[in-house]
């Protein structure tokens, strides 16, 4: 089974702090994604990566950056956390090739509160 692991289930941070959210997948997937999920807005794509050190902006990249130094690890960085970044953050990965290559597998999520 595909396993996507997010390092924290819950985080509480102060406004202005630099925040790192970590995600690791164990299935040698090419693609990795970061979403945020808010009530009434659904899942929105922040950034994704299709290869090591390659990244693409999603629909709401402002205030975020990402890092992918190794294939299995994809980090989301909040450079200076703000209260409007309080949300559930979900990491996903997909194989990228083959008949099931587009299926995204999700981690359990990190609920971030910025005070």
């Amino acid at each position: 089974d595909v396993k996507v692991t997010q390092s924290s289930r819950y985080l509480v941070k102060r406004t202005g702090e630099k925040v790192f959210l970590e995600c690791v997948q164990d299935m040698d997937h090419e693609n990795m994604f970061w979403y945020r999920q808010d009530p009434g807005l659904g899942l929105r794509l922040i950034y994704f990566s299709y290869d090591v050190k390659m990244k693409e902006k999603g629909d709401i990249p402002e205030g975020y950056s990402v890092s992918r130094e190794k294939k299995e690890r994809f980090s989301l960085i909040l450079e200076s956390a703000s209260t409007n970044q309080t949300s559930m953050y979900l990491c996903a990965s997909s194989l990228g090739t083959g008949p099931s290559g587009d299926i995204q597998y999700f981690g359990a999520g990190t609920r971030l509160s910025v005070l």
Partner: protein
Amino acid sequence: EDQVTQSPEALRLQEGESSSLNCSYTVSGLRGLFWYRQDPGKGPEFLFTLYSAGEEKEKERLKATLTKKESFLHITAPKPEDSATYLCAVQPGGFQKLVFGTGTRLLVSP
């Protein structure tokens, strides 16, 4: 603009009472349509992928169908353990990203 609309927002059923969830979409060249199940406090869990109009897939009490404008998730004789939020997503042609709807919250009462 690629868009997904799910209805109803919430649905309450009695155990054994069959029903359908709707996912309407507009997308530039559909590469695939995905259904996920999400339990409270957890990440979405993959259910089905549909690629072309007329395609159907089944898993236990769930059956997903696809037309050129919408998809349905049919739930036959649901049980309380089917209670969850069901998410629909489309993948535009040429892209790896998914565009999600806001989901349907299903509650099945015993």
